[in-house]
C-alpha cells in the first residue's frame, strides 16, 4: 500500500512529460507513519464513496463530439467507465443513480491565483506577487498554496474542479503556476502538474509594482538579458541539474535553471499581455528564444488576429466581465467569439482580482461569451476541453470519455443561464457537492 502511494505521488508531482521534479524528496519521506494512516483511512473512505455511480441527464455535453440527449454517464472508482445515450448504456445493478438536466465535464479554470490569493485580501493571504525583484521565475506555486482557502471551495461549488493557479500578473516573471484539482485532502492528492507554467507580465502594470523597469521597453530588455544568461547556463550546465548524478559543478542557480527549462520547451511561458504592443513584444520574445508561449489576458488580441495565428500560440483570454480599466481598458465581450471564428485555441480564465470580486467565476464569464457570439458548446469548451489542451492535461480531464477522471458537474438547466444552479459536483468519482447553488 505504501508503495502504491509513492508511485501515485510521483505520477502527480513529477508530471507526465518529465517537466521538472521540483518537489523536494523529503516531502515524500515526511511522516511515513501518518501517511500510511491516512491511506488506510482513505481506502475505507474510497470503498464507501467511490461506489459505482450512474448519472442520467437530459443533456450530456461530452465535449468530444455532439451533445448526447437523454444520456448516461457511468463512473467506476475514480474514472469514467462509459458514456452514451440511455439506449446504448445499460445501468448495471448496484449503481447509485443521480439525475440532472445537464451534465458537463468538471470546469477548468485555465488561469487563476486562488489559493495563493485569499478571500480576506490582507497581506497574510496574498502570496501571488513577490515584489522583492521583478524577475523570480524560481518561485514555486505549491510552496505558497493554501489548499484550505475558502475561495477554492467556493469555486468548487460553482463547478470548478481543476485550476491552473499560482503566481499572478505584475512582475516581469512572477513565478510558477501549477494545475490542481479543487478537492482533495493533501497537496499530493490535488496536484496534476506541479510546474505547469511560468507567469510573465509585460506592460505598464509591471512599473506600477516595481521601480525598475520604469517603461515597457526596459521590461523587455531586462527579460531578454535574463533569457540570454539562461541560454549560457543551459549550454554550460544543462537545465535539470537536480537529476544530474555526475554533477561536477556545485553551483545551481534556481532562477536560471527555471528559465533554462523554458528555453528547452519543458515548461511553457505564460505571458500576461493585454495591450497590443505588449502582445507583440511577447511574440517577438518567443521568436527570438523559441520557447512555448501562451498569451494571457490578451484584451486587445482582436487587433492582432493574423499575428497571433502566424505565431500559432494559444490564448488564455481575460474574464469576459473584466473591468474596462487600465491595461484592459479596450476590452470587448466579443473577443472570445472573434478568436473562435479565427480558429485560435483559447480558454476563458477567472484571472486575478485585487479587490472585489476576489475571484471571478469561469462559469459566469463563459456565460457572457455565450451571450456574445459563442455557442453553448464553444463557451463550454473554453472552460473544459480547450482549457485542458492548453494546460496539457487533456489526457486526464476536460471531456466526458471512458478512462478520464470522473470530474463532472450536474446542473438543473442550461449551465449558462443566471438562474440555473450547480447541483452536484463529482471529483475523481466522488460526490463532493450535493446542494444546488
Amino acid at each position, binding site marked *: 500500500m505504501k508503495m502504491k502511494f509513492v508511485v501515485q505521488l510521483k505520477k502527480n508531482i513529477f508530471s507526465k512529460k518529465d517537466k521538472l521534479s521540483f518537489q523536494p524528496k523529503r516531502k515524500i519521506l515526511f511522516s511515513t507513519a501518518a501517511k500510511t494512516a491516512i491511506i488506510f483511512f482513505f481506502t475505507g473512505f474510497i470503498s464507501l464513496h467511490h461506489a459505482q455511480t450512474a448519472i442520467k441527464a437530459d443533456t450530456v455535453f461530452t465535449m468530444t463530439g455532439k451533445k448526447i440527449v437523454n444520456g448516461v454517464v457511468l463512473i467506476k472508482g475514480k474514472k469514467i467507465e462509459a458514456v452514451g445515450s440511455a439506449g446504448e448504456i445499460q445501468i448495471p445493478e448496484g449503481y447509485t443513480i443521480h439525475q440532472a438536466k445537464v451534465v458537463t465535464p468538471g470546469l477548468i479554470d485555465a488561469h487563476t491565483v486562488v489559493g495563493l490569493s485569499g478571500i*480576506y*485580501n490582507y497581506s497574510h493571504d496574498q502570496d501571488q506577487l513577490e515584489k522583492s525583484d521583478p524577475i523570480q521565475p524560481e518561485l514555486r506555486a505549491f510552496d505558497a498554496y493554501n489548499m484550505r482557502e475558502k475561495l477554492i471551495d467556493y469555486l468548487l461549488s460553482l463547478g470548478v474542479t481543476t485550476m491552473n493557479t499560482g503566481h499572478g500578473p505584475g512582475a516581469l516573471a512572477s513565478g510558477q503556476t501549477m494545475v490542481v484539482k479543487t478537492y482533495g485532502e493533501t497537496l499530493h492528492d490535488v496536484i496534476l502538474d506541479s510546474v505547469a507554467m511560468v507567469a510573465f507580465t509585460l506592460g505598464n502594470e509591471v512599473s506600477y509594482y516595481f521601480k525598475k523597469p520604469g517603461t515597457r521597453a526596459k521590461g523587455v530588455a531586462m527579460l531578454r538579458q535574463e533569457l540570454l544568461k539562461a541560454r549560457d547556463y543551459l549550454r554550460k550546465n544543462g537545465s535539470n541539474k537536480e537529476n544530474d548524478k555526475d554533477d561536477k559543478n556545485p553551483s545551481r542557480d534556481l532562477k536560471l535553471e527555471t528559465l533554462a527549462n523554458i528555453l528547452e520547451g519543458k515548461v511553457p511561458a505564460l505571458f500576461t499581455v493585454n495591450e497590443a504592443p505588449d502582445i507583440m513584444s511577447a511574440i517577438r520574445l518567443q521568436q527570438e528564444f523559441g520557447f512555448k508561449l501562451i498569451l494571457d489576458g490578451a484584451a486587445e488580441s482582436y487587433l492582432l488576429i493574423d499575428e497571433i495565428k502566424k505565431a500559432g500560440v494559444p490564448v488564455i483570454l481575460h474574464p469576459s466581465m473584466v473591468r474596462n*480599466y487600465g491595461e484592459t481598458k479596450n476590452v*470587448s*465581450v466579443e473577443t472570445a467569439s472573434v478568436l473562435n471564428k479565427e480558429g485560435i485555441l483559447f480558454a476563458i480564465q477567472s484571472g486575478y482580482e485585487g479587490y472585489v*470580486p476576489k475571484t471571478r467565476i469561469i462559469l*459566469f464569464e463563459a456565460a457572457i461569451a*455565450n451571450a456574445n457570439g459563442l455557442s453553448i458548446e464553444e463557451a463550454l469548451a473554453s472552460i473544459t476541453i480547450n482549457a485542458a489542451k492548453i494546460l496539457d492535461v487533456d489526457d486526464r480531464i476536460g471531456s466526458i470519455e471512458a478512462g478520464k477522471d470522473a470530474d463532472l458537474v450536474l446542473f438543473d438547466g442550461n449551465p449558462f443561464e443566471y*438562474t440555473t444552479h450547480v447541483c452536484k459536483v463529482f471529483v475523481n468519482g466522488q460526490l463532493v457537492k450535493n446542494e444546488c447553488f
Partner: protein
Amino acid sequence: MILKRKILLPLSILFLAAQLFPQTNPIAVKGALIYPISGEPINNGVLIVQDKKIVSVGKADEIEIPNSAEVIDASGKVILPGLIDTHSHIGEGSGGDASSPTNPEVRILDAIDPMSDSFKKALAGGITTVNVMPGSGHLMSGQTVYLKLRKAKIINEMLFCGDIQNGICGGMKMANGTNSIRNNPPFPGTRAKSVAIIRQLFIKAQEYKKKIEEAAGDESKMPKRDLEMEALVQVLNGERIVHHHTHRADDIMTVLRLADEFGFKVVLHHVTEGWKVADEIAKAGVPCSIIMIDSPGGKYEAINLAYKTGSVLEKAGIDVAYHTDDGITDSRFFIRSAAFGVRAGMSREKALEAITLAGARMLGLDDRIGSLEKGKDADFIILSGDPFSDYTKVEQTWIEGEKVFDRSNPEDKKFATGGYEVFRGDLQHADICGGLE
C-alpha cells in the same frame, strides 16, 4: 412645505410650456410583454408616451393608438421601466476629500463630467436614473446627486431638482466599518470612535437647527450660514435621505441606532450581512439597496457576502433594491444582479421591482419614475427577451420619450460590447481599492 414649493414651481413651468408650445406626436410601442411593475405583466401590451410622459399603458384591445402616433412594433420583446441604480460612481467625479472624515458640505455634482462615456455605458445597461455618490472611504463623504441620464452638456440638464444651488438634488453619503478607519486623525481609528464623531456632528446640527427654528423667520436672529450645518439640517428634517454604506451585521445595527437617535431617513447600502439581521432591519422599517458580487471577500467585512441576501430580506418584508456600485460592478450588467437574486430564491416580481420602483422609492422619486403608469416620466427599456436570461440584450433605452440608446446602431452598440478606444477617460472612480464604494 419647502420641498413641495420646489417641486411645484418647475412643474408649473412645465405645464405652461406644454400649453404654449405645440405637443409632440405621441409614440406608441406595441406588441411587447410589458412589466409595469406597479401592476401585473401585460401580454401584447401597448405603451403610449407623449411630451416626456406616459400617456397610457395597457392591453392591446383596451388602448386605442391615436392616428397621429408614431408606432413602434416591439412584438416578442419585453418592456420594463427605465432601470434605477441607487448607488453608482459613474460620471468620473472624484468625491470624498481626504482632508476630513466628514464632508457634508461637499457636493458630488460639482465634480461630474456630464459628457463622460460612463453615462453611455449605463444607458447600454438600461439604466435611466442613477444616484451618483462620492466614495465610501469616509464617515460622511458628501452629498450625492440623483441624475436622469438625459443627453446633457451641463450637469443642470441631468438633475431632478429644480434649483441647483439651493435645491435638494440628492442624498447624503455615509459609511461605517473599516473603510474610514485610518490611522491618521481626524480620521477615526476604531468603530466606536467613528460613531462618536458622527453623533457629535449631528448634535451640533441639532443645535443649529434649533437656532433656525427659534429665529422663526427673523433674519437678524438666524445663525451664520454654515454649509455643513445646512446640509445636515436637511438630513435631520428628513428632506435629504442618508445613503449609508454598511457591511457587517453589527455595523448595520449601528446605522439603525443612529437613525433612531437622530430621526433621519436612511437607506442601507451593500448590507452584506443583512441576511443575519433581517428581522431587525424589517422592524426598523429601513429599506436596503444591496449589491451582488460574484464571489465573497476582497476584505474582511465582505467575506459573508451571499447571493441569498435579496431573498432573505424580501422574505423578512424589507424593501429591497439592487445597485451596481459601478465600477465595482458594471452598469451594463445591472439586470444580472437581480437575476442572481432570483437564482438564490427571490421572487421574480420583487427582483424586477428591485431594479426599478424600489430604487425610486429609496431616492424619494417614486412619484416620477420606477414604474410604467400614466403621468410618470416616459423612461423605459426594450429587451430582447426575458429580463433574467443570460441571452437577453437591452435593445433600446428611452428617457422622457426620447431614444437614447439603440443597440441596432453600431455607434451605440459599442458601448454595450466595449472595444478599441470605445471608452475615453478614466471610467473608474479614483478609489477602487478604498472599499466597496
